[in-house]
């Protein structure tokens, strides 16, 4: 095939220029190189259309917007539906239209020359709105706006990330293609919030939770709970493996550990207490600050045996009273 021959001739030249594999040496127009035989007219037509700023499918022509069956994209869409992951709703599914879907860049020209009947037969790819959580409803009153990510290429697309809502990207079902086992495992060993976002208010806030006698630590995201009660229940579930099946661990409480013991009860029963290490490195009892203040100061959590926690003061107003130190 001629592209192969071209490549080989370039290689044998020992050329120093960077060639794309078709043998054309202009790096900067890697995307604009075409197979020879493309009519210049086609190229020109397509590049004009491709660079037109439109709201809509990549390369779709203006009349497309009159077609109510097409899905249009844009963050400014009027949205009637709540967010849902990718499945297109039935009333949105567009039937085939005769619009030719112009792809990005000049590569399209190749297909143009190959298929003379493309006009009539090609069905438009109705872009499912996987990019944006709002279901999109086609309408004619669309405002022309720069549409991130789906604008025909040939434009700067580097502003995309700033203009599109970051939440949208995260919601594609089954994407990125990482096994759920891996996703779940990594989530449990996630980085500390300080590293995840620069924004302190919105990212997850992971703190390590250890328990006396447990062989390993866990991590919890404090921001995923709204109050102490939720945190307590979650810890109870996480650490119940260590309290159940340990007959006699409750010591003085005399409860039937196997069936009835819950961490909460243990906490309340004063066999274990929940403590935290604050920003100063002091260990404090959990519970006296409001939840919001607590998550701001808590660096680590520890479920201590009640007997070890004797002497640990209840958390006073910060910095105004003495704190008793607890050996970690």
């Amino acid at each position, binding site marked *: *095939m001629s592209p192969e021959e071209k490549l080989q001739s370039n290689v044998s030249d020992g050329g120093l220029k*960077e060639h*794309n*594999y*078709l043998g054309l040496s202009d*790096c*900067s*127009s*890697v*995307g*604009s190189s075409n197979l020879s035989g493309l009519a210049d007219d086609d190229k020109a037509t397509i590049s004009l259309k491709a660079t037109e700023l439109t709201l809509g499918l990549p390369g779709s022509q203006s009349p497309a917007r009159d077609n109510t069956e097409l899905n249009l994209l844009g963050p400014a869409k009027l949205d009637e539906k709540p967010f849902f992951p990718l*499945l*297109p709703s*039935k009333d949105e*599914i567009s039937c*085939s239209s005769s619009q030719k*879907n112009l*792809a*990005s*860049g000049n*590569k399209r020209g*190749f*297909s143009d020359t190959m*298929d003379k009947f493309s006009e009539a037969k*090609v*069905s438009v*790819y109705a872009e*499912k709105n*996987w*990019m944006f959580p709002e279901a999109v409803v086609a309408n004619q009153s669309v405002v022309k706006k720069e549409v991130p*990510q*789906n604008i025909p*290429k040939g*434009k*700067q*697309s580097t502003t995309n*990330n700033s203009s599109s809502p*970051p939440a949208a*990207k*995260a919601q594609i*079902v*089954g*994407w*990125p*293609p*990482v*096994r*759920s*086992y*891996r996703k779940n495992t*990594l989530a449990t060993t996630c980085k500390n919030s300080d590293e*995840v976002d620069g924004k302190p208010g919105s990212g997850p806030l992971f703190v*390590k939770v250890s328990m006396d006698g447990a*062989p*390993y*630590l866990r991590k919890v995201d404090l921001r995923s709970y709204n109050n102490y009660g939720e945190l307590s229940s979650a810890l109870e579930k996480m650490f119940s*493996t*260590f309290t*159940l*099946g340990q007959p006699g661990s409750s010591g003085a409480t005399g409860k039937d550990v196997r069936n009835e013991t819950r961490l909460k009860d243990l906490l309340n029963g004063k066999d274990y207490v929940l403590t935290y290490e604050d920003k100063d490195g002091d260990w404090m009892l959990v519970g006296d600050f409001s939840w919001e203040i607590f998550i701001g100061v808590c660096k680590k959590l520890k479920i201590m045996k009640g007997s070890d926690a004797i002497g640990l003061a209840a958390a006073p107003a910060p910095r105004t009273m003495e704190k008793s130190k607890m050996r970690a």
Partner: protein
Amino acid sequence: MNYFPDEVVEHVFDFVTSHKDRNSISLVCKSWFKIERYSRQNVFIGNCYSINPERLLRRFPCFKSLTLKGKPHFADFNLVPHGWGGFVQPWIEALARSRVGLEELRLKRMVVTDESLELLSRSFVNFKSLVLVSCEGFSTDGLASIASNCRHLRDLDLQENEIDDHRGQWLSCFPEAYTSLVTLNFACLEGETNLVALERLVARSPNLRSLKLNRAVPLDALARLMACAPQIVDLGVGSYEDEQDSESCLKLQAAIRKCTSLRSLSGFLEAAPHCLSAFHPVCHNLTYLNLSYAAEINGSHLIRLIEHCKKLQRLWILDSIGDKGLEVVASTCKELQELRVFPTDLQGGGNTAVTEDGLVAISAGCPKLHSILYFCQQMTNAALITVAKNCPNFIRFRLCILEPHKPDHVTSQPLDEGFGAIVQACKNLKRLSVSGLLTDQVFLYIGMFATQLEMLSIAFAGDTDKGMLYVLNGCKKMRKLEIRDSPFGDTALLADVNKYVTMRSLWMSSCEVTLGGCKRLAQKAPWLNVEIINENDNNRMEENGYEGRQKVDKMYLYRTVVGTRVDAPPFVWIL
């Protein structure tokens, strides 16, 4: 050839182990067909619904090892609803009723129950090896049955399964007299482990070669285990913080130094850096290193470890290693054959940990590289073209640009040329996954050049049916094609129905395929099961009066010799 007695021919066949080759042998003549079927030891069934146990047993009455795969690959990414299928129970029941002396069972993406495991453990006296990959539906009770009843068990290998951990005592179910363990992998168990039972088991298993622990095995226990098993070849470390225990770390270091056979290291879900450095003495012998769960370890510590691993052949790592880290890999690991770089930040938050530069560095530095899985935020055509030039030996090339439809970030062009260069240069390419902004052009290149391609994964790519047609027409060896969110429809689906004789399966979700198209295909191709998966509706689509032009959300078709399966749930409609 018929001048030789059967036993001689059979002896010759014993040297032929690959499934493909044995399938070819069986086609030569009736005599060879007969000899081959009675002597086939290992049976591989890539799709458990392509055949049923009865026919399997009729064809191969004497096999010892069975490999079964259930759900389609995209099930890994939650695209296949729960309950779709892939149940192993009927297989085990049928095999148990027969006289097959099953010794090995390898399952992937199947639903396994405790009942199945119990039946398995009681039915096959010589059962030796159980390997479960990405399976679900069972608990540690099932493992207890296996441990209790399989006297000759050698391998219990649980890879990335969803196991309900009842925190029972399954490890203590191995009888005291049992000493034949070779492989024990329970890394995917979430619960607490009976450390005493584990240590005693390891201590009485002189043949133990592969041990992969779960999170709940702390540092001091690890040190003791390694001291008991210095012959270990493959170690999966659990998860541990070393806050207080430097004495355990010293013991670990001492134990590690004795493990001179160690070649393969994995785990490290949470590990403080200086426990990682305890492994430096054995790094020079490592051939496989899997740090892809070590989210806690920052790039510089990873690099320090890898700098010692000059013999590494397979490396699985997180993108926290960065481009700089990959450059270190490229200059250190000259024997590298397989590299997988996984994303740490799954939200696509713009953290450009690895870019095209890392990929190019690896391709330039590692001449033996033939398999790659690379997650990244950005790519360029120029980089891919360079990679193709550097590494024409790729067998597997899987590139996942995290943001769908993302173009070449320098030129803003589609990545058609880059992937085109890859398929054109890599003449032995068998598996390809494409991503980024792609037009029909890339599929033209794939159809033209990827003559050996057997598996292709497409997401958010292409413009028209022509793209898919290029692939179907061009890739003669295509076996598995999986497509999501791409504009391919009925025209492509129906263009060449006979293509689906040579293909194992086709998955299309969120494409342009319609119900009418699927029905027409099912009519034309009676050897196919065409499944429409519609999890939103527990009623069958036909009852709701769906029109032929209705698009189907998920279609999975596969060739089969046994017709419609009987275990399909209500949301699966088989045409």
